[in-house]
């Protein structure tokens, strides 16, 4: 029992620490299962309750597997594997009678830690993984040397990990980067909000309620002024059944755009499971090999963005020269009939002029003057939605304004289309970049004139000018946006919490830039700098494996030398034991010559109960080394240190 106490708490702790990051993803019953098992185990150590024997353990394992099958049935994804690991990890510490069992438990803990990567690769998880590896390594130290103090275990584990750092860096830099996610598995993410292929009333305002980050933008130069922070995503130019669609076929644009005052920046985009790539209006070129620039000035990835990606962009937020006239014809199409009042208004606006600027001016003025309200919860629009919106309800969010304005312009004979994207963003003072959230989602209009090409017009600003500088939150009347649950209680610390969040965000971004940013291309670039040219990653893999075998061989050799050394240096152990005996002899407890070490410990402890613990520990260590075949350097060190420290004072 006492034997168990030396190892089991450390092993259980390592498992608990390893499983914690999975707790949110695992079904509740598995979390409860683990808690009950470990709770019982620790309590049984404390109070001496009976521990399940082998048949009971087998039955428990079968129950767990049955539960797992019931939960996941045939969906054997990473969650099911992690569930299985957790169930087994809950039972394994009950089985720790032999050294082998304990080592297996440690390896299970390591395995659970690495499986965290199946779920996410965020900075927080990675940081936590370092911590859990430390704890598990400390448990490994304890399993092999149960006499130390926990602090010493942690210290040694830290040293081991410290020694592993160079290897880690080499592996990070040289291990072949695979295309795609780790283990070739798609990361399991939550459903993520974002733009869809169509824009209809409500599709933007539903995004605004979400606080989730859409992407982050780090500028090379200063952050452009607020009226230039239009993040272009999708262009909707087909009006059909009251909602706006992206045309089915948009041709790619071969050459990059030219312009003045380029702005260079890096975007780190969160997975949104669509192909849009957001860029400051107007993007100059496609940022990477896996994306293309289209003739409506949007950029799209070849595949849906299902994990974090980083890309470098260039945009011309100011003037663009040489604009393409693509899509002008489509931007005039309206349904044959409907919304008669809007058409009438449009005809009125375009009555005496063909000047696009003037018509746009009139349209904006109309919105400004007629008591329109900027709100997240407009009334429903029935037949002839434009008429209802423009002449009756006069309440809406940006998609209402953009949609009505585009309709109005088309009816007046001005080519117009809607652009979906984001407006603004929150500046992070810690690292001077912008965080663009779903709540910054926005829709605006582009009109075409032969003179100026496609020009951005934001009808929302005519109604709510504050949208530009103060974001949706500032432009809406108070209480329209839901407040976070915790926000209420944290109100007094709001600014502090905000600072904390921003600081953390900056740190995570830095981490991503460093960790995810190190792609295959960068690796190749680095290797080429070092003068290594690889035709294929297979060659590199071979070289790496070879290198690792070499390193393992050297380590093994060193280990053998270390392992053999105590054999040849047996005398010091006996010497220190003799020292220990002499110290006891000075305290009046001389060792009778024919007394073995164990009997002597009992003999000494019997006469000096105050020394019992120390005498027993030293003797145990001595016996382990001298008779038990324990050749660990650590045991020796510990034994010597303890003998040195041992001071049996004369009993007064």
């Amino acid at each position, binding site marked *: 029992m006492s034997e168990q106490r030396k190892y089991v708490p450390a092993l259980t702790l390592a498992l608990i620490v390893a499983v914690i990051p999975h707790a949110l993803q695992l079904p509740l019953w598995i979390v409860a299962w683990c808690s009950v098992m470990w709770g019982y185990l620790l309590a049984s150590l404390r109070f001496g309750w009976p521990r399940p024997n082998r048949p009971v353990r087998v039955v428990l394992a079968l129950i767990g597997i049955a539960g797992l099958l019931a939960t996941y049935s045939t969906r054997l994804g990473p969650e099911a594997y992690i569930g299985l690991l957790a169930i087994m990890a809950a039972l394994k510490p009950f089985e720790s009678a032999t050294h082998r069992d304990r080592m297996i438990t440690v390896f299970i803990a390591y395995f659970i830690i690495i499986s965290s990567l199946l779920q996410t690769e965020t900075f927080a998880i990675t940081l936590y993984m370092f911590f859990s590896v430390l704890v598990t390594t400390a448990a490994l130290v304890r399993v092999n040397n149960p006499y130390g103090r926990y602090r010493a275990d942690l210290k040694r584990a830290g040293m081991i990990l410290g020694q592993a750092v160079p290897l880690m860096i080499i592996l990070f830099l040289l291990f072949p980067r695979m295309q795609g996610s780790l283990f070739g598995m798609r990361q399991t993410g939550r459903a993520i909000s974002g733009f869809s292929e169509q824009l209809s009333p409500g599709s933007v305002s539903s995004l605004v309620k979400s606080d989730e980050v859409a992407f982050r933008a780090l500028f090379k130069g200063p952050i452009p002024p607020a009226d230039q922070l239009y993040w272009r995503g999708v262009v909707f130019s087909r009006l059909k059944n009251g909602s706006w669609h992206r045309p089915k076929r948009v041709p790619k644009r071969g050459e990059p755009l030219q312009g003045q005052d380029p702005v260079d920046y890096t975007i780190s985009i969160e997975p949104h499971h669509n192909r849009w790539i957001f860029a400051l209006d107007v993007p100059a070129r496609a940022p990477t090999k896996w994306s293309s620039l289209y003739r409506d000035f949007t950029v799209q990835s070849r595949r849906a963005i299902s994990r974090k990606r980083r890309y470098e962009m260039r945009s011309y937020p100011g003037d663009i020269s040489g604009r393409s006239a693509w899509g002008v014809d489509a931007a005039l199409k309206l349904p044959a009939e409907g919304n008669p009042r809007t058409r009438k208004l449009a005809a009125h606006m375009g009555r005496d002029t063909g000047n696009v600027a003037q018509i746009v001016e009139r349209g904006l003025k109309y919105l400004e003057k007629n008591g329109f309200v900027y709100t997240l919860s407009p009334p429903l629009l029935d037949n002839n939605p434009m008429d209802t919106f423009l002449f009756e309800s006069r309440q809406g969010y940006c998609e209402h304004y953009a949609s009505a304005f585009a309709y109005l312009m088309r009816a007046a004979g001005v080519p117009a289309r809607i652009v979906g994207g984001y407006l603004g963003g929150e500046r992070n003072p810690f690292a001077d970049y912008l965080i663009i959230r779903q709540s910054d989602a926005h829709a605006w209009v582009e009109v075409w004139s032969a003179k100026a090409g496609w020009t951005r017009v934001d009808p929302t600003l005519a109604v709510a000018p504050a949208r530009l500088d103060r974001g949706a939150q500032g432009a809406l009347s108070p209480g329209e946006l839901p407040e976070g649950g915790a926000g209420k209680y944290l109100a007094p610390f709001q600014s502090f919490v905000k600072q904390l969040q921003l600081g953390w965000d900056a740190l995570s971004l830095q981490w991503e830039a460093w960790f995810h940013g190190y792609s295959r291309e960068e690796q190749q670039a680095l290797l080429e700098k070092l003068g290594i040219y690889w035709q294929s990653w297979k060659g590199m893999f071979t070289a790496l494996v070879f290198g690792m075998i070499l390193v393992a061989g050297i380590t093994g050799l060193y280990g053998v030398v270390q392992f053999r050394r105590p054999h040849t240096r*047996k005398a010091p152990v*006996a010497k220190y*034991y*003799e020292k220990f*005996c002499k110290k006891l002899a000075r305290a009046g407890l001389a060792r*009778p*010559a*024919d*007394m*073995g*070490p*164990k*009997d002597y410990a009992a003999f000494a402890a019997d006469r000096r109960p105050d020394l019992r613990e120390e005498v027993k520990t030293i003797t145990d260590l001595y*016996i382990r080394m*001298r*008779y*038990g*075949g324990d050749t660990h350097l650590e045991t020796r060190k510990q034994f010597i240190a303890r003998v040195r420290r041992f001071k049996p004072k004369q009993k007064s």
Partner: protein
Amino acid sequence: MNEQFEYIVKQISRVVLGKESQVRLALTCLFARGHLLIEDLPGIGKTTLAKVLAKCLGLQFQRLQFTSDMLPGDILGVSIFDQKTGAFHFHRGPIFTQVLLADEINRATPKTQSALLEAMEEGQVTFEGKTRSLEQPFFVIATQNPLEYAGTFPLPESQMDRFLMRIEIGYPGRSAEKRILQGQDPQTILEEMAPCMENGEVCDIQKKIDSVHTSDAFVDYLQKILHFTRSANHFHVGLSPRAGLALSRAARSWACLHGRDYTIPEDLQQVLPWVVGHRLRSAEDRMEIPRKQLMDVFSEIPVPL
């Protein structure tokens, strides 16, 4: 291992009251694949100890009372002519068992004794040219009465060597005897007792004991003891290498039963008097040395650091 062993000791001690250390020694001897010689007066509980050992370990048990007119066939078995089939049939003797209690072994003639001792050593019986293996584990508990010498054939020293240990049981202590006198009949307890071990488990433990680690330091100590018996002038003849092996085996068994997978000097000290007692004779009168005196002599050997 330790827990299981303690449990068995506890179970046996329910029947053999107040003789725990003898029970431990007997079990150590058995698990070391050794045979046990119990030398004591009649009525002390030799038979009960043998019976309860067999029962507790789930082994078959046979008892054989040795007499001077006994023949080897009485132990090993005989071939009898079957008139129906017209062939000889071997009828197995009492030795085909797992625990054999050989009561008063010194009453039988040397010829009969040798038959038993050879079977003990070889683990097999050769009769009329045919060899038959004995079932494993095979364990002989022999008893002899140290006081009655009339009409006995004392075992020669060379044959005493076949027994791993020789123990005495001795009179029970006062309180133990009171419990014996007041308590339940040992026979009834014995009958109700359930075996503590399953079939094959004894062999498993025996195998485990084979793999107990003996360090250099331990072997040094063992050699010191062997050397001491050969060089000091207390003894007529020193211990043989076979006795050294016996000591090592007994110490390993003791270590294993006490929950260790390596031996320490204390293990050796615990088994020493019982393993060497019947192998050493005094140099003065070539008589056996009383145990007390023997232990005094051995306490001259220092335990190496």
